[in-house]
């Protein structure tokens, strides 16, 4: 048991939380159009509660750092209450201000609230390093914070009023946003994993593959939309389903044949690339059909018609048009490609050459080495690439509504056009939250998929074992 020492991180959080009280807590506006007026928390009912909570948390952090499980418990509970307090006092402030206002008035969170959220983040990070139950402080705090809006106590906040206005379309747009980025990720994986493998296998290819993927990453997204727009526009007008499927399928068959014939030679690799692009084209069409269907079901409007299945149907019936989901999907796929390719490449290159040499010498085939050694060793790297690609596509999908595709960016765009900050928030906050959630989820999955022998604790444990067991010292 260590001697009690102040925890600087939690103290910093508490100090930030107290400093936040000097800033306006919420912003009040008579209607959407006028400029607002800031209200500090301490002038509002029950406002004193928050400084009291911060002081209590600060006192706890000052007196005992990681000293015993009971203080840690107390810290976690106090933290959760503070989280609920910040969230609840926001709703409470809105309710009290709206009592005497017209329904047109709007209450939005202001600087003091945002700084308090930052303070919670800092304090939660510090507390999660305390022993025992405190490790779950972050999760506990998040739940306490979210419980308030879920119980309807933010109803008088501008955010909630805007949500009520668009309630019918919020979840569909979130769904479309997810569908768009996940489909793009899938396409990027199907193209990127083999490209990464080819780059790792062939020294001469690696420069080209990584270079092209890196270059594509640097093209500004709006410019990329602009570039693919006329292509899809022409495709949608002039091509039919029959010709598109014919070309894509032909590329797939020809590419596969070349790959079979020439294997690892240049012609074979080009064939492999051709086949992959054929698959991509077909999957792009399938993804667009899916997104179009979801859009029709969730948001009404034109749904997918049976005529689109006729071979002479124009591609525009499948959603391939200059604007809409098609160019967005392609652009997102291109952006997701780099993290997937580079991480696959780096992961495979992290396999020791001696391992491959020994395995080949013992009679393992290339496929067996790939499945039993290279894949499991590279997997944690690949998962990291998937995480980066997912956060990237989910973020960039925000601007997809600019070119007529769906997604949460729709609310941001409408909010900016109509000068409605609450509507902008309604689009932006879920994007941040879901991106963090996805990142955490894939990161956790990546840890689970890391073979035990490669986890950092295996090495530490090994040091202990070597230290402890006498026979180790006697043999070597």
């Amino acid at each position: 048991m260590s001697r009690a020492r102040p925890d600087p991180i939690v103290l910093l959080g508490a100090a930030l939380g107290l400093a936040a009280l000097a800033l306006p807590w919420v912003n009040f506006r008579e209607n959407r159009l006028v400029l607002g007026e800031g209200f500090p928390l301490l002038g509002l009912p029950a406002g004193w509660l928050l400084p009291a909570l911060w002081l209590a948390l600060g006192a706890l952090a000052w007196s005992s750092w990681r000293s015993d499980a009971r203080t840690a418990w107390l810290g976690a509970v106090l933290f959760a209450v503070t989280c609920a307090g910040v969230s609840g006092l926001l709703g409470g402030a809105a309710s009290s201000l709206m009592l005497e206002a017209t329904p047109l008035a709007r209450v939005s969170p202001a600087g003091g609230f945002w700084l308090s959220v930052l303070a919670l983040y800092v304090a939660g990070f510090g507390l999660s390093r305390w022993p025992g139950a405190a490790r779950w402080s972050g999760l506990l705090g998040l739940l306490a914070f979210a419980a308030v809006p879920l119980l309807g106590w933010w109803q008088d906040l501008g955010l909630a009023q805007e949500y009520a206005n668009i309630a019918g379309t919020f979840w569909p747009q979130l769904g479309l946003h997810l569908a768009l980025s996940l489909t793009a990720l899938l396409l990027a994986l199907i193209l990127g994993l083999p490209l990464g493998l080819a780059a790792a296998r062939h020294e001469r290819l690696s420069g080209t593959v990584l270079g092209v993927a890196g270059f594509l990453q640097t093209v500004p997204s709006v410019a990329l939309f602009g570039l693919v727009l006329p292509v899809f526009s022409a495709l949608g007008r002039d091509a039919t389903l029959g010709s598109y499927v014919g070309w894509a399928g032909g590329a797939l068959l020809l590419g596969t044949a070349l790959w079979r014939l020439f294997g690892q030679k240049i012609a074979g690799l080009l064939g492999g690339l051709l086949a992959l692009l054929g698959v991509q084209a077909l999957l792009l069409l399938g993804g667009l059909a899916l997104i179009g269907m979801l859009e029709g079901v969730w948001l009404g409007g034109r749904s997918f018609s049976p005529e689109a299945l006729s071979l002479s149907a124009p591609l525009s019936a499948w959603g391939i048009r200059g604007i809409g989901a098609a160019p967005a999907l392609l652009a997102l796929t291109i952006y997701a490609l780099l993290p997937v390719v580079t991480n696959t490449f780096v992961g495979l290159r992290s396999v020791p050459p001696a391992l491959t040499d020994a395995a080949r010498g013992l009679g393992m085939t290339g496929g067996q080495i790939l499945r039993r050694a290279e894949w499991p060793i590279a997997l944690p790297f690949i998962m990291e690439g998937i995480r980066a690609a997912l956060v990237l596509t989910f973020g960039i999908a925000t601007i997809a509504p600019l070119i007529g595709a769906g997604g949460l960016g729709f609310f941001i765009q409408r909010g900016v056009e109509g000068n409605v900050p609450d509507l902008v928030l309604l689009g932006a906050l879920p994007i941040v939250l879901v991106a963090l959630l996805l990142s955490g989820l894939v990161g956790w999955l990546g840890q689970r998929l890391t073979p035990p022998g490669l986890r950092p604790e295996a090495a530490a444990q090994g040091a202990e074992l070597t230290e402890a067991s006498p026979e180790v010292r006697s043999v070597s």
Partner: protein
Amino acid sequence: MIEFREVTKQFAGGPPVLNGITLAVPDGELVVLIGPSGSGKSTLMRLVNRLIEPTSGSVWVDGRNVADVNVVELRRNIGYVIQSVGLFPHLTVAQNVELVPSITGVPAAQRRRRAEDLLHLMGLEPAAYAERYPRQLSGGQQQRVGIARALAADPAYLLMDEPFSALDPITREALQEQFLQLKRELGQTILFVTHDVEEAVRLGDHICLLGDGVIQQFGPPDELLHRPANDFVASFMGDSRELLRLGLRTAADYMRPPDPAARGQVGLDWPADRALSALLGAGGAAMQVVAPSGEVVGSLRLSDFAGSSQAQQPAGEPGA
């Protein structure tokens, strides 16, 4: 038997690394390939399991040209051990040893038993080591696992490329000792690469010294030490080669009839270099040679070693 017939190897854009090598590794023998760095030792060895294909000439294993044998089948019958071991870091020690049997479909219980036997044979108690991961082992322990893995499919042949070179001297000597014993028990035909003359003399039934793409000399260790074929061999084997020779013999090879004036004792089965060291320590006086039973069987004095330049058969060497 492993045979090289007129083997030449030239990598693209370079001079020939191997130039008309003809060499045979008889069944049950350990032949050491030795030579300066870059002399093509590894290249010659990797021709056997077809990790490299010859430019011309042929390699024969068990009377079959390896070019005509299915490469996977060929390699499964030839154990392969390399300096950097190349264990699978994400698999446990037991899983590493069971690697090839698990691919060829040996039942789990059977291959597990075999892995435990091999680990035991290599001095790693399965109870303590089977479930560890490679990075939890010392270098010497890793190489023991590497050798166990190579033996798992019970191959008739072993290729070993500098297996002990990365280890500290004490570990290396322990492993060499254990390996010599293992070799006697298992009877594999072994091609062994090293650049360490002492190791070659210690382990080899025959030594093949490579240099400038050709075999400079092939013969029993004693012959390379005592009758180097040319200056290259003499200088490679080193200035202390007559001392190294002593390691091949025992006190019994040098002793004369018992001498009542002798003081101190050396063992009959001591390596000759150890006996010489004892004599030097005793100030040059004669010493008694004692059999393991305790009976005095002879005596030894410094001048006896001067006679060693006469051709004497090293103890325990098969017809050299």
